[in-house]
């Protein structure tokens, strides 16, 4: 909500912007600290030894050690953590790409065309979002077994290529519907077909929404545990979510500092992606778009 500057005030009102900023920053810092405290604790815990993790509440380790990172990276399996990170990328990157492409295409169809049976199709779309996933697990497993896709990454991203995740389609639809039609109508009058309008006009404008879709799908896929668990049986194909839970067991003491250390590392891709994506939220992409 940027706006022009207020006219200059006199007297005590002169200090109002300062107080304003103080309050604003104060609030942000307080809330911000509450937000990231658990993360700080997690990182701090990664540097503690196992006995200390559960006995102290503070996040600064008394006797810092890199054991958690070293042992966690080596893992107790035949492969290092690098393998699992790479596997996660092999799953998540294709998944995000196909999700974005298919969601935008399908959303455009819903948002801009009077398709026969649109209401019913849309209801179906929403229905896919509403049903709890755990109950679809067994039938989907049997289906993918018939396809011969077990122990591959296909069940994890192939469905997304067909815009089966209604959540993202719905989100893009909403963004598209909030745009005035002027630009698109102008482009059509200039002789563009619908696909050109989509790619050249609409996409740049809803870029923040597209980035959001990519971000969300990236993050959620990184944390997905149950799906990889039942579809992947080879340890060398495990993604990070499985690898992290591999050493939590009922017969042995768990090395929590390793898990916290690796969780911190696993967090890095999502964080980096967010930093990179930030600038699309900073620039007001639409400024000037409606003029003339």
């Amino acid at each position, binding site marked *: 909500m940027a706006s022009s500057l207020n006219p200059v005030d006199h007297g005590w009102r002169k200090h109002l912007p300062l107080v304003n900023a103080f309050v604003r920053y104060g609030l942000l810092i307080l809330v911000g600290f509450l937000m990231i405290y658990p993360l700080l604790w997690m990182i701090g815990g990664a540097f503690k030894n*196992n*006995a200390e993790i*559960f*006995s102290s509440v503070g996040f600064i380790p008394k006797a810092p050690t890199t054991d958690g990172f070293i042992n966690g990276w080596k*893992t*107790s*399996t*035949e492969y290092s953590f690098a393998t699992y990170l790479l596997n996660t990328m092999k799953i998540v990157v294709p998944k995000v790409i196909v999700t974005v492409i298919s969601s935008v295409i399908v959303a455009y169809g819903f948002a801009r065309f009077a398709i026969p049976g649109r209401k019913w199709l849309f209801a179906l779309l929403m229905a896919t979002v509403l049903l709890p996933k755990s109950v679809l*697990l*067994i039938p989907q*497993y*049997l289906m993918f*077994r018939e396809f011969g896709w*077990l122990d591959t990454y296909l069940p994890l991203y192939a469905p997304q290529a067909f815009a089966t995740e209604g959540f993202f389609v719905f989100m893009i639809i909403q963004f598209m519907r909030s745009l005035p039609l002027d630009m698109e109508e102008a482009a059509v009058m200039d002789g563009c077909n619908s696909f050109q309008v989509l790619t050249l006009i609409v996409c740049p404008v809803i870029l923040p929404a597209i980035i959001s879709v990519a971000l969300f799908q990236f993050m959620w896929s990184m944390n997905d*545990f*149950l799906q990889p*668990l*039942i579809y992947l*049986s*080879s*340890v060398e194909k495990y993604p990070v979510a*499985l690898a992290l*839970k*591999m*050493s*939590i*067991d*009922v*017969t*042995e*003491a*768990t*090395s929590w500092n*390793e898990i916290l250390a690796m969780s911190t590392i696993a967090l890095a891709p999502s964080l980096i992606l967010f930093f990179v994506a930030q600038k699309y939220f900073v620039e007001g992409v639409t400024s000037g778009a409606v003029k003339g």
Partner: protein
Amino acid sequence: MNAYRLHRRYILLGASAAALSACSKPRPAPTSGRELRMSWWGGSSAHKATLEALRLFEEKHGIRVRGEYTGFAGHLERLTTQIAGGTAPDVMQINWYWQTLFSRDGTGFYDLSKLRETLDLSQFDARTLSMGTNKGVLNAIAVSNAARLFYLNQTTYQKAGLSLPTTWDELFARGPQFKTRLGQGYYPLDGLFLEFIALARTYVVQGTGKPLINAETKSLNCTRADMYDFAGLYARMTRDHVWPSAQVRASYGNVAQQEMRPWINGQFAGTFQWNSSIDKYSDTLAAKQTLALAPYLLRPGAKDAGMMYRPAMMFAVNAKTPYPDESALLIEFLLNDPDGIRAMGLKRGVPVSKAARTLLDKEGLITPIQRQSEAQLAAAQIHVVESPWFEHPRVRDGFQDILEAMGYGRLSEREAGDRLYDDINAILHRVVR
């Protein structure tokens, strides 16, 4: 391309393939290039040890084994999905009560007695073998047996100037003693509801001399009065400060016992735990604290030790495996072969196979506390064989919900006893199929 030529080429290929497959033997003999799949769960050191054992197996027998392993979380979910979908591995590590899920009629797993020539069953006593038998079919073989024993934090007891209890009454007396000498936060014994249910079962079975659950009649094998005793035990132990109350335990959230702060620093000073996994508990104790095996508590005139002595984990073979002989060879290697035994060590508890025991004993690989535990088990009067339905989650949760309600004051002791008798019987009727 000429459609006719294409057509003929495929017919030729198909015919030669059919001819080849007709000539091949129905079950290939073990050769290099065969690959077995084995699944297990465990922690870091269990994974390392098992992978090493599999490597040695490949060196010795030339058969490669692919390990499919996870932590305990999710393992049963995955195994169940695999069994339902027909994609289970050749050799599987299973829990004792999972037999009731997958092979009540004996056909869910491969019949191991057919593999007698490869798998030396003489190393296992009759009782152990019976615990892997369903409707006369040997489905699973025990890796190690275990029972719950009393392990107490020696350091805390010494700090209180108290000796380890030798009878139930002495244990009950320790409660107030702990409170006065050490403070509100100290308890002589602790555990999850799951552990208490096992403790109460032991108490009741010592009195009745019969297993608690009768799978034939689908009901409890005791009287209503025994259930009053069951509820009464919980009421008494929490009231007398012997066992932490439900509210106190719940304040820590859904945490494993050995990871609770009071356990780590010795305030909750005891556990009624499986001897096969006791290392997990002593490992997390803060420095300079030791865990000791306490004498096994017996009621005066006890008809049986009331121990639930059953396999800690077992190996089973996929009923439809294409490689039964190789699978048997693998299990034989892991349980009876010196190299396999040494590689696995005590990671899955003290092995029950005679060959393994003798070897580990001779090489001094059994820790003192394990040695004492085994001695206590050998000396105990164990005639009662409990039904695996006791460990079915529905049954366990049935017990837990009632005890929890009593702990939070929603049920009186008498009501809890009645509910235990009525509800558990109803659950058993529904669940035992």
